[in-house]
């Protein structure tokens, strides 16, 4: 049996979701690793967009450690600034976005602003929206990476930073003035989620080998919908792991971390 870490599973799953000849707006860490893996396997025509300015760079200098750094800009096709790339998303040039955060609810809304206390006097302040709020609004489909814990998969966010389907009502996104179609997938190392077309609620699509839907529900603070075609998450092969460890993150900045 192939041994892999939780982060390797997340990166592999992220790669699996991306399709060839599309663009993906990425943040630091696992999204970049997933996208490099996709480029090296099934999606050679995938182009990355980084929020500081570059479109379609060649990541041959090593993995960027900052979304504006030299490695992220190296040999890009187009390189301006934040306004330019976010305007690309408004105009429909960004097919996928990877975002993260501290909390997610059943409609795929995400908090990355604060937890506890009040907005002007938060108990734990996080860095803030950064690009995530704009990516969730206007990239066509957002993919959210989150650790599978009840305190993160919560019925009620302390603050809604990145828009999902809001309260789940059909016109929520349109009434909010945003353009993208919304949350598409939520990736954890033990489960992959999508969203139900009718109710826009989070739906369990795949579980890791050996896990059941009940195991996953116990780690989620709201009631999940379970896909009638519940599947098993494909696992990275030896070849995938070699690519992830030797090509995507050879310095081990993200994949070699231990899950807390």
């Amino acid at each position, binding site marked *: 049996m192939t041994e892999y870490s939780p982060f390797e599973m997340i990166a592999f799953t992220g790669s699996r979701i991306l399709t060839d000849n599309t663009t993906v707006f990425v943040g630091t*860490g696992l999204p970049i690793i997933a996208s490099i893996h996709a480029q090296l396997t099934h999606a050679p025509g995938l182009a990355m967009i980084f929020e*500081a*300015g*570059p479109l379609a760079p060649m990541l041959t*200098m090593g993995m960027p*450690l*900052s*979304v*504006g*750094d*030299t490695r*992220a*800009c*190296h040999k890009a096709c187009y*390189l*301006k*600034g*934040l*306004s330019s790339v*976010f305007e690309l998303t*408004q105009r429909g040039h960004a097919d996928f976005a990877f975002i993260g955060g501290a909390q997610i609810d059943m*409609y795929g*809304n995400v908090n990355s*602003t604060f937890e506890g206390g*009040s*907005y*002007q*006097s*938060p*108990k734990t*302040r*996080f*860095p*803030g*929206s*950064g*690009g*995530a*709020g*704009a990516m969730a*609004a*206007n990239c066509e489909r957002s993919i959210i990476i989150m650790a599978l814990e009840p305190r993160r998969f919560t019925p*009620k*966010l*302390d*603050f*809604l*930073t990145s*828009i999902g389907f*809001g*309260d789940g*009502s059909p016109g*929520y996104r*349109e*009434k*909010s*003035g*945003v*353009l993208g179609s919304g949350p598409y997938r939520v990736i954890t190392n033990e489960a992959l989620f999508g969203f139900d077309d009718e109710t826009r609620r989070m739906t369990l699509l795949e579980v890791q080998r050996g896990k059941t839907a009940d195991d996953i529900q116990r780690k989620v603070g709201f009631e999940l919908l379970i896909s009638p075609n519940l599947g098993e998450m494909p696992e990275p092969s030896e070849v995938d792991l070699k690519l992830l460890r030797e090509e995507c993150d050879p310095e081990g900045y*993200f994949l070699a971390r231990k899950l807390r």
Partner: protein
Amino acid sequence: MKDQVQSPIGSVSSLAPGQARDAAHGFSWWGPSPDQARKTTVGKPKGLTDKTTTMKEAVHEYVKDGINLAIGGFVNTRPPVAIVHEIIRKGAKDLTLSFQSNSICPELLAGAMLLDPQHLSIKRVELAWWGYEVIGIAPLFRHLCASGMIELDDYTNYGMSARFKAAAMGLEFLPVRDHGGTDMELVNRGKMIESPFTGRNTYLVPACYPDVGILNVTAADKHGNCRIFGAHCTCPEIAMAASHCIVSTETLISLDSIRNYPNLTEIPYTAVDAVVEQPFASYPGACYGNYWFDMEHILLFRNASEEFRRTGNSDALKEYYDRYVFSCETHDDFLSKIPYRTLRRIREMDGGQPIILT
């Protein structure tokens, strides 16, 4: 209810009543109004004069108590560290900081405030993100927030960029396609309206007109025409939005070079007030074509900050400022305390990205 027109955010939000920004309270500019900003620019001589000066003179001329200070760069990319060090040495009270995403620059200002609020203080921050990316959260930002010491105004990275862009265009606001349907709609100073053409909900962000913009650029001539290689971040917009702009440049180039490739000028000389030639002006941040960021030095400062946040003990933080900021007269003094091998290594890590200086 903040405004008449709104997304359905009220049905999802957890914010207690009273946390939303009170629309009845009225809107005010956190810096000059568009009219004041335009008047300042109109009143400046527009000749191709020599604007080169020392960092000390530039900062003393433009950085005053109570100003809105816009910080250029993006996280660890081209942060204007040399200018920030000088601002800390000079001191300034009741600052409003404006930026999209930044790391060490606002953290350095926050640390100076925590060590001596009579010397330097931050009153409020309009921002999208404050942290160190791969290196971790910003401990001093978290501390300031938890202590309720600064007023916050949150936008997305595009929101802050569009706010500077609106000011660069001489406008009061720009319509954007984000913020709506999130709690930022409730707490920030933007506003949802119905489009006058289609009736569809559209979010407006107010322009951000800083008093002073601070930037580090790849190359500039002595008049302030600037070239930026690598990510532009939001530097051109900030320069054009601000009433006054201080630019550090990794290298000075001639006006002839500028005239040979006018398309490469990202910031025109009329938007710049002071030019300071300073190699490694973003160190320990990165500058494309010159050097990568020095993660070890950033960690040195961050660890001292984290120790203060966790224990309240400011010894390590104070030692950092004494050694690297207050005991230095110039950025060159600071750089002389960084091992040559480190500077050489970060130069090599940039890989010599092609930049045009001719």
